[in-house]
């Protein structure tokens, strides 16, 4: 068992270093530390907006969410690897041909995920928060309580997603029941147990924070079943008679991957709702900035991540043996991103109606949002080509992205305070973005892609 865990950890490390390069991947925890430190800027605002305990609850929930994501990658890792490397296979799958029980492998995967991501993700967060408590005397994070509660929150996230994946392998209807059951359980407890343990280090709270995770993991192992459904999905030919080949293919990908509505909700609506909530409080304390304008700035920048959705289905390899230029593939994806820009437009219209701002503010806000949207899109194309979902994990690319993406919204916010009439200068971004997109697409056309 110990050896299996050791090899799984080695495999995870090598997967990441192969994807992102050894040096760049080592940068990842450092970037996490720096990002946590950067969050310190918001602490005075957070202190004004909410009680310290509320902030800590949110922090625990975010960590549990990270656990959910780590677990989800563990489950879909094989599919991702196949898409990325072709014939690649993960030990957790190939081990099925070895004399090891599926349950044993599954348990090893759970332990590996907890250990590995504790080092790569949780430790940097803890180090970052520790540095904040040293640097900012106003911040009171009780590290002796936070370290175990943070691990328990992470464990809970992993346990929930592993459990749900096992239920899913048995029955989809059962999945809904299980998800509702977990929701009901938390509603009964009335709080988030790891956070309760942070607030009060009692044995009861420790048991409440630990036992559900262990029960879920134990049940996952007990009822472990490989999802062996090999459904063959049939569709009528939707390419016949269509002239815009790449555009149609991308729309088919989006439609048939069945991620559409879920992705809109989880990747766009929920984060924007969170930003809305955050900015509403923020503007109360910084009334010189117009709320609708500020929201539009965030909406524009954030929505440009729509491009990432569309790139998930392709690899460079899929086009390398056909007479199709990567330049055209990228430009098509940009066109689709612009078409899908109707979703943030709807969000903007809802925000504008809700705010009842003056026509001039609406116009300036809309222009800024649209300009930042296309600019964000252009920078993503330039830095990541067809692989934003891979290259954004590359520390160097992420830093470059942040350096390029931050100045325009900051300049626009400053202009909005001192000289709102100059906000029309945002239109320059449209022209600039057009050149960046073409430059970026040409760059990726000329680059030799070995792996993805």
């Amino acid at each position: 068992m110990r050896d299996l865990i050791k090899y799984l950890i080695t495999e995870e490390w090598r997967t990441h270093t192969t994807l992102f390069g050894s040096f760049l991947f080592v940068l990842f925890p450092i970037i996490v530390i720096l990002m946590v430190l950067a969050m310190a800027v918001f602490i005075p605002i957070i202190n004004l907006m909410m009680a310290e305990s509320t902030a800590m609850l949110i922090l625990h929930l975010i960590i549990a969410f990270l656990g959910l994501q780590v677990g989800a990658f563990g489950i879909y890792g094989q599919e991702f690897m196949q898409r990325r490397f072709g014939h690649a296979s993960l030990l957790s799958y190939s081990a099925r041909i070895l004399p090891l029980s599926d349950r044993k492998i599954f348990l090893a995967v759970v332990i590996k995920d907890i250990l590995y991501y504790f080092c790569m993700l949780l430790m940097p967060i803890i180090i970052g928060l520790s540095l904040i408590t040293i640097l900012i005397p106003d911040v009171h994070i009780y590290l002796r309580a936070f370290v175990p509660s943070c691990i328990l929150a992470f464990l809970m996230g992993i346990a929930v997603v592993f459990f749900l994946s096992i239920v899913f392998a048995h029955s989809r209807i059962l999945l809904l029941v299980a998800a509702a059951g977990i929701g009901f359980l938390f509603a009964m407890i009335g709080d988030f147990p790891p956070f309760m343990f942070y607030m009060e280090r009692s044995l009861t709270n420790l048991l409440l924070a630990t036992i559900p995770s262990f029960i879920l993991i134990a049940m996952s192992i007990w009822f472990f079943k490989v999802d062996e459904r090999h459904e063959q999905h049939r569709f009528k030919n939707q390419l016949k008679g269509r002239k815009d080949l790449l555009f149609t293919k991308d729309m088919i990908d989006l439609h048939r991957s069945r991620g559409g509505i879920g992705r809109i909700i989880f990747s766009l609506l929920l984060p924007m709702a969170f930003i809305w909530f955050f900015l509403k409080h923020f503007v109360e304390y910084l009334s010189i900035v117009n709320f609708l304008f500020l929201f539009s700035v965030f909406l524009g920048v954030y929505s440009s991540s729509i491009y990432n959705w569309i790139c998930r289905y392709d690899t460079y390899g899929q086009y390398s043996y056909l007479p199709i230029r990567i330049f055209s593939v990228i430009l098509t994806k940009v066109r689709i991103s612009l078409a899908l820009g109707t979703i943030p437009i709807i969000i903007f219209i809802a925000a504008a109606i809700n705010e009842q701002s003056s026509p001039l503010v609406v116009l300036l806000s809309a222009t800024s949002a649209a300009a930042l949207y296309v600019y964000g899109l252009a920078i993503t194309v330039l830095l990541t080509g067809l692989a934003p979902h891979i290259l954004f994990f590359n520390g160097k690319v992420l830093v470059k992205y942040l350096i390029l993406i931050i100045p325009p919204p900051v300049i626009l916010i400053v202009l909005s305070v001192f000289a709102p009439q100059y906000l029309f200068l945002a239109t320059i971004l449209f022209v600039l973005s057009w050149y960046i997109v073409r430059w970026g697409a040409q760059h990726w056309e000329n680059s030799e892609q070995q792996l993805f």
Partner: protein
Amino acid sequence: MIIAKSISKSFGTTKAVDNVSLEVGKGQLYGLLGPNGSGKSTMIKMLTGQISPSSGHASVEGIDTQRDPIEVRSKVGIIPEQENPPSFLTAGEYLDFVAKARKLEQYDTDKWFTLLDFKDQKDILCKDLSRGTRQKLMIAQAFMHNPAVAFIDEPLINLDPISQNTIKSYIVDFVKKGGTVFFSTHVLEIAQEICTHIGILYKGKLHFSGKRPKGDLNTFFLKQVKHAGSD
């Protein structure tokens, strides 16, 4: 006509292909033989403009593969070793996709489904097809525009014996009609059976290129590799 002049390819410190020169004439069925990792796939990628050589030049049908890779790919058919058809297109849609990408005005996808015996899979998503069926689809996409030259990386892998025979017959017939095929394999029996010419690539270097020798290819191959190993 396929020409490679002193082409090399390095990946970091690894030299995958080392100073290889070869010529494949019209109507030849050229099998590039070599053990796993000998540089066969890299060679095909360079000859089809999928990657650029670190040094040297290559051309196919008179087109420089580095200068005009898209033109090369529009003229030839390629079956890559690892790539799969796009997950969310059906088998039928994928062949339509390729035909449109190749700007074919008239094409018959049904012919391929019948020939390779998978008509009943036409409306199924590529991701839900078996490996063998995906390989059939890749073969169809490579030949559906009736190319002058076809490059095939491990052509019969994953196929059942019946399909293997069908493909072998098709390739031989294609060459008889004037087509040129450049394929890589480490299965010597296939080369023995259908190749007119062979090349032996070992650790990135070409140790033999010419007409397939008479007699047992297995013995010849092992002799060449042994000789190369002692160099």
